[in-house]
C-alpha cells in the first residue's frame, strides 16, 4: 500500500520541485554571485550580503516593525471581529463573514487610492479636522508616513486574519465555555483560559498571513509611504530592475525571508510560553 502512495506522489513532487524548490535554490545561489558589466557571473562572494546588512540593515528592521505592527493589529482586530461573528452575532455570523469576503473583491490598488483620498492633504480626514477646527492647515503626516502604510495594509489584510481565526473559533465547543463558567471562571478567564488557548493555531496563522504579506509588500509603501514609510520590498524591486544587481536583490529577498522566519519562530515560542497551562495546575 505504502509503495503505491509513494508512486502517486511523484507527479506532485516533480511539479513542486520544478516550479518552486529548484528556482528558489537557484535564486539563493545567485546571492553569492557577482555582476560585471551588467552581466551575472557565477562566483562565491558575500558582497551582496554585506550590502544587505550594511546598506539595508536599518530598513529591514523598519520593514519588520511595519510587518509586526500590521500583523498584530490584524490579529487583534481579526479576533475581535471573528469572536463577535462566532459568539455574539447568532445566525448573522456567517453573513458577517461573507461581508468580509466581499471586501476582498474590491482589489488592492483601489483600497490604496481610497486611503490616498482619505489621508491626502485635501483629503477627507484633513477637511473634517479643519471643519471641526482641530487644525487650521492640513496635517502633512497623515499621508506618506509609516502610519499611512500600516493603516492601508491592515485594511487590506484584515480578511486574511479573520478567516483562520473564525475557522478555529468555530471548533471551540460551547459546552467547554459553559463548563468553564460552571467551574467559576469569569468572562475574562473564559477568554484567556478556554477560548484563546483553543484558537491558538488560528491566531498564529492569522498573524503569519498578515505579517508575511505586509513585510513583503512594496506597492503600498510606494504609493503611501513617502520617504519615511519605505519598505525593503521596494528596494528588492530596485536592485533587480533599475540597478540590475541580481545578487543584491536575491540577498535582500532571502535576508527578509530569514528575518521573518526568525521573528515568527520567536512569536510562536512566546505565545506558547504565555499560553502555558494555568498557574498552579498540576502538570
Amino acid at each position: 500500500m505504502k509503495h503505491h502512495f509513494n508512486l502517486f506522489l511523484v507527479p506532485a513532487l516533480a511539479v513542486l520541485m520544478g516550479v518552486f524548490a529548484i528556482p528558489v535554490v537557484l535564486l539563493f545561489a545567485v546571492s553569492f554571485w557577482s555582476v560585471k558589466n551588467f552581466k551575472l557571473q557565477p562566483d562565491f562572494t558575500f558582497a551582496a550580503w554585506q550590502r544587505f546588512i550594511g546598506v539595508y540593515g536599518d530598513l529591514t528592521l523598519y520593514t519588520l516593525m511595519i510587518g509586526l505592527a500590521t500583523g498584530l493589529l490584524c490579529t487583534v482586530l481579526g479576533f475581535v471581529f471573528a469572536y463577535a461573528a462566532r459568539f455574539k452575532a447568532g445566525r448573522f455570523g456567517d453573513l458577517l463573514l461573507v461581508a468580509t469576503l466581499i471586501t476582498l473583491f474590491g482589489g488592492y490598488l483601489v483600497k490604496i487610492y481610497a486611503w490616498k483620498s482619505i489621508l491626502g492633504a485635501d483629503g477627507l480626514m484633513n477637511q473634517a479636522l479643519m471643519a471641526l477646527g482641530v487644525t487650521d492647515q492640513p496635517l502633512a503626516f497623515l499621508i506618506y508616513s509609516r502610519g499611512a502604510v500600516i493603516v492601508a495594509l491592515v485594511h487590506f489584510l484584515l480578511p486574511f486574519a479573520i478567516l483562520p481565526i473564525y475557522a478555529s473559533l468555530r471548533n471551540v465547543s460551547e459546552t467547554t465555555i459553559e463548563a468553564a463558567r460552571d467551574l467559576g471562571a469569569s468572562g475574562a478567564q473564559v477568554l484567556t483560559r478556554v477560548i484563546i488557548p483553543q484558537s491558538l493555531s488560528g491566531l498564529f496563522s492569522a498573524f503569519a498571513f498578515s505579517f508575511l504579506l505586509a513585510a513583503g509588500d512594496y506597492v503600498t509603501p510606494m504609493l503611501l509611504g513617502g520617504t519615511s514609510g519605505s519598505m525593503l520590498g521596494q528596494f528588492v524591486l530596485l536592485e533587480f530592475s533599475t540597478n540590475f544587481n541580481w545578487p543584491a536583490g536575491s540577498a535582500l529577498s532571502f535576508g527578509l525571508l530569514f528575518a521573518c522566519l526568525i521573528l515568527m519562530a520567536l512569536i510562536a515560542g512566546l505565545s506558547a510560553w504565555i499560553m502555558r497551562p494555568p498557574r498552579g495546575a498540576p502538570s
Partner: protein
Amino acid sequence: MIASSSPLLRLSGLSKSFGPVIAVEKLDLDVAAGDFCAILGPSGCGKSTLLRMIAGFIEPSTGSIAIDGLDVTRLGPEKRPTNMVFQSYGLFPHLTVAQNIGFGLALGKRPREEIAQRVDEALRLVRLDTFGDRTIDRLSGGQQQRVALARALIMRPKVLLLDEPLAALDLKLRHQMQEELRRIHREIGGTFIFVTHDQSEAFGLANLVAVMNQGRIEQIGSPAEIYLHPKTLFVADFVGETTLLDGERRNGRVRLKAGIEFDDKGRDGAVRVVVRPERVAIRPDGLAAVVTDAVFFGSSLKVSLRLPSDETLILRSSAPDAAEDYKTGTRLTVGWDAHDQQVINLP
C-alpha cells in the same frame, strides 16, 4: 416524599417561557441533602431547561431557586454552589486530564500542593489513577465521562447536576457507570440531581423521581410510589409496562368494562385502572381471558391476554414453567390484588 423543614434545594414557583412557548410551567420542588434525584421525562419535556435553570445557565421567568437557604436565582453559574456534568462532557481539549480536573481549583488560586492532592483524590474516586497526564483525545467515551464527573466533584458542590449522564455510552458501559455513580454517591454522600429520559436509569439510581411532561411535573415520589401508584395517566404510561383498563365510577363503586367491580371512593365519571403486568396472576375468581401471545425474555415471560371487553391485559410471569401455562389460545381466569391497582380519574 421529602418533608424536611429546610431542604437543601428549594424551587418555588419556578417557570421558564421562551417568548410565547412555555418550556417549564410553574413548579415547586424540594430536594433534601443526600438525595439522589432524577428528573425523568421524554425529550422536549423541559427537563434540561429545568436543570440549566438550577445550574444558572438559564434565567427563570418566574420563581426562585434557593440552595441551603440562600437565594441564588440571580447568580450566574460561576457563583453558584452547583457543578454540572454536561451531556457532551465539555472537557478542555487543550489540557491534560489532571489539568481538566484541577481547572476550577486553579481558577480559585489554591496552593499548588492542595490542587495536586485533590486532583489525585478525584482521579482515585473515578478510578483513573494513572490517567492524569493523558490528553483528552486519548480517552474513551466512558473515561471522558469520568473525567467530567471528577472535574465537577472536585469543587465539592452542594448540588451536583448531571445532564443525561449516561446517554452517550453504550449499554454495557451504561450499567457499569450506573454502578459507579451509586458508589460515588454513597462514598461522598453528596446531593445529586440528574436528568434522564430512561426510566430504568432513574429507578436504578435515584431515591427521588420527578416525572415531567410538557413542561409540568406530573408526580414526585420514590421510585416505588411512582411505579405502583402513578397519579396521572402519563406517569402510568411512561413509567414501565402497564395495562390501562377502561371503567366508570358511580356512587363509590367502580365498574370495569372488562367485567369486574370493586369499591373505590372518588367522584363519579370515567376512570382508568392501572395494573402492572407482574402483579397479574392466574386466579380462580378473576377475569376470563384468552392468551393471544407469549414472548420469552429470559428472566420472565410476557403474556398478552384478551379480555372479554376486547382490551389487552399484559401479564409477566417469572415462574419456571410459565411457558406451559400460557400457550397461545389457552383460556384462563386472571386477577390481581386490590392494592396493586391504581384508579385514575379521567378529566
